[in-house]
């Protein structure tokens, strides 16, 4: 009998604990939800509490009762002068320990110290997670106040089209306090500005930097094997000749002409995009997205695919490139196992994490001239940008932070500390003679290439609508793996474009 009762007691205790825990979780969740939703109105209240009590004590805890449609909820908020500031969440993609994060944190701290009303709260989001998280948070109506993007359709314009992003045009037409005398928009590189300006003419993003793609090479390897170095104004035939010479002189060694990691597909796309840009021209590429009279399956697009496969045929790349990532290719290039790599300007910083010595010898060169090209200077590139979500309660403050972040002083830190080209024009950077001397050969050559470009074509995997992006990335691995033909690739791209034009209501 004793046993029965105690077992029953135990069961009922477990049941009570279970129910209590369940109810606790639900109440906690509801409380947290309500607490989160009503935070803003209470902040103004607590500010007054703090001010009134400031003479007595520095920290006050106040209890505020808020009535919401779901019923009364009691929220206790500890109020100190720092908490009274409203947070502006900022999503960035820079990992702990990266130079870019140093740069961001320097200016976040500066802003937070100076600004009385709000403070920037940076949140790190991993690159791939960001791509889905930003979509779901936008759909759910709780995006971060300031969010990372790369301009273009995928992560900026399609949110702007739904009215979820603040139109920055009025701010852009005024001067930034850090560069007086000119409208803020005039201080940016025009090619980058175009990537954050939607077809409605409004500006939705602030480009932070310029990253572009070109051919990088290792001067030391070329010297070691006594092979003529790539130079600007070289031709497609010279390019192929250099590849042949490298193959001859490195026969039997695990050293290859060009590093490629195409499992991610956008690395192969660099070649395809440049070939298309050179053969069809910047104007065509820019318009083809929206103009039903143009096509993606023209001779130029087919020729671009053929050039890609030509490089595969002559053995320009390391073996197994379709199973390797961009990071694997960067490792090969950094370790001196490849003479060249067609990749973005971030390669220098990335390569340093694999090898401290070799990246010092990195240099950059323009793409070779192709037979029948119509464009020879424009670039494929882009880079990080920030935008402000419509849900942000203090857009003025968010913009003020962005203006500080785009100030000449901040952009110089980007150039010298992070080795990344600034998003504003060099003339507004105000480089001193000494600073100019400090620039590395690589940075100088990068700036030279950037200064010649009048148009910067955004990466197709970020700038175009998802339906075309999918087709582009889907076809690149097959193109380089030679399981499809250049004609089939061009057709697939055109089919996707037609579908997009239909969906967008253009045709």
């Amino acid at each position, binding site marked *: 009998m004793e046993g029965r009762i105690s077992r029953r007691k135990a069961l009922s205790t477990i049941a009570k604990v279970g129910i209590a825990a369940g109810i606790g979780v639900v109440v906690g969740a509801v409380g947290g939800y309500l607490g989160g939703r009503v935070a803003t109105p209470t902040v103004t209240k607590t500010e007054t509490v703090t001010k009134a009590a400031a003479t007595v004590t520095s920290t006050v805890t106040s209890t505020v009762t808020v009535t919401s449609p779901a019923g009364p909820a009691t929220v206790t908020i500890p109020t100190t002068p720092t908490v009274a500031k409203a947070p502006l969440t900022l999503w960035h993609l820079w990992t702990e320990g990266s130079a870019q994060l140093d740069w961001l944190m320097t200016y976040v701290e500066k802003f937070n110290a100076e600004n009385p009303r709000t403070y920037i709260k940076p949140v790190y989001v991993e690159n791939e997670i960001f791509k889905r998280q930003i979509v779901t948070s936008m759909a759910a109506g709780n995006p971060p106040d300031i969010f990372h993007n790369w301009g273009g359709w995928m992560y900026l314009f*399609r949110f702007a089209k739904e009215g979820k992003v603040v139109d920055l045009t009025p701010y852009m037409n005024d001067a930034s306090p850090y560069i007086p005398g000119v409208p803020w928009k005039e201080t940016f590189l025009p090619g980058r500005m175009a990537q954050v300006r939607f077809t409605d003419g409004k500006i939705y993003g602030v480009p932070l930097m310029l990253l572009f793609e070109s051919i990088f090479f290792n001067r030391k390897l070329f010297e070691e094997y006594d092979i003529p170095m790539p130079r600007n104004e070289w031709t497609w035939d010279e390019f192929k000749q250099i590849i042949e010479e490298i193959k001859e002189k490195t026969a039997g060694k695990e050293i290859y002409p060009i590093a490629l990691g195409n499992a991610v597909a956008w690395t192969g796309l660099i070649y395809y995009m440049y070939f298309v840009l050179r053969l069809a021209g910047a104007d065509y590429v820019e318009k083809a997205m929206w103009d039903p009279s143009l096509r993606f399956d023209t001779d130029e697009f087919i020729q671009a695919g053929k050039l890609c496969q030509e490089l595969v045929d002559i053995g320009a790349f390391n073996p197994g490139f379709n199973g390797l990532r961009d990071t694997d290719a960067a490792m090969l290039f950094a370790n001196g196992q490849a003479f060249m790599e067609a990749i973005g300007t971030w390669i220098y910083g990335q390569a340093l994490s694999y090898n401290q010595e070799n990246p010092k010898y990195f240099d950059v060169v323009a793409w070779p001239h192709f037979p029948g090209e119509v464009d020879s200077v424009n670039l494929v590139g882009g880079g990080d940008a920030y935008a402000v979500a419509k849900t942000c309660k203090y857009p003025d403050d968010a913009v003020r932070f962005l203006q500080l972040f785009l100030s000449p002083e901040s952009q110089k830190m980007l150039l010298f500390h992070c080795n990344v080209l600034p998003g504003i024009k060099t003339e507004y950077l105000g480089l001193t003679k000494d600073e100019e001397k400090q620039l590395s050969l690589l940075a100088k050559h990068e700036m030279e290439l950037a200064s010649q470009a009048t148009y910067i074509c955004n990466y197709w995997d970020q700038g175009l609508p998802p339906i075309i992006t999918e087709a582009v990335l889907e076809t690149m691995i097959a193109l380089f793996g030679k399981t499809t033909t250049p004609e089939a690739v061009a057709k697939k791209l055109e089919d996707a474009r037609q579908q997009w034009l239909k969906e967008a209501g253009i045709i």
Partner: protein
Amino acid sequence: MRKHPSFFMQIILPFIVLPLAFYLLFRLGPAFVALYTSFFKWDGVGSMKFIGLENWINLIVDDVFWKAFRNNILLAIASIGIEIPVGLFLAYILMIEPIKGKIFFRTAYFNPMIFIPAAIALLWKLIYFPVGGPLNNLLLQLGLPKIDWLGDPNINVWSVILVVVWQWTGWYFVLSLAGMSAIPLEVIESAIIDGASRFRLLTKIIIPLMKSNLFLQITLATTGSLMYFDLFWIMVEGGGPGHSAEVLATWLYKQTFMWSKVGYSCAMATFLTLITFLIGFYWIRQVARAS
């Protein structure tokens, strides 16, 4: 006298109603939402547009979907055909043979299971590395040609399946070991005294006695294979040339989060759920019958 709390309050509510409510809310609910969404065209941000069965028709004519499904079936066959028999065999040897250091072997076989898949994927990517990777160096020293393990569309799916088999065999080994230790020792002893060979002992005594255990293993292997994601995602991110190493879960992920075809991927998810449910249901019934 104080009234005792009722049976409902003590048992039904905490142990049946609450878990059921959670199950309905977080498992079955989303499944029905997915079914509902599968009739719409939706990019995850804009407004939803009703398109009837279009997503389902697209699913049936999608080559990649069937290719991915085929790869899942291959994985299931490899799991049932290799992982379970090998696990069973290893467990059998460890049980009947007087081997020293049984604990060491038990730990060693189970070891791959305790690593996170991401670490295993990176480790094996290094082993398969096409430029100077250890496996290719070994082939070279044996005078064999190098193989592009993860880039060649004809073999990359097998390269990944090999790693999955390597990782999961230990799991089925442990399940078999547990099943075998439930068999009464007297039965085995008397079979040995009667002069049964090792093979007969295994096929006539052990396997029939752990039938329900094996059915359970098959259930876990099939449903697990259909939903498998990790190694395929990290080792052959793009699915390889022409989606040669795509599986349903990676294709689903790409459709949802990379290409924002939420409606379409909901149709795919519903299909996957149905298939997994039917197969799971069939095998669970076999388990119930066997026991």
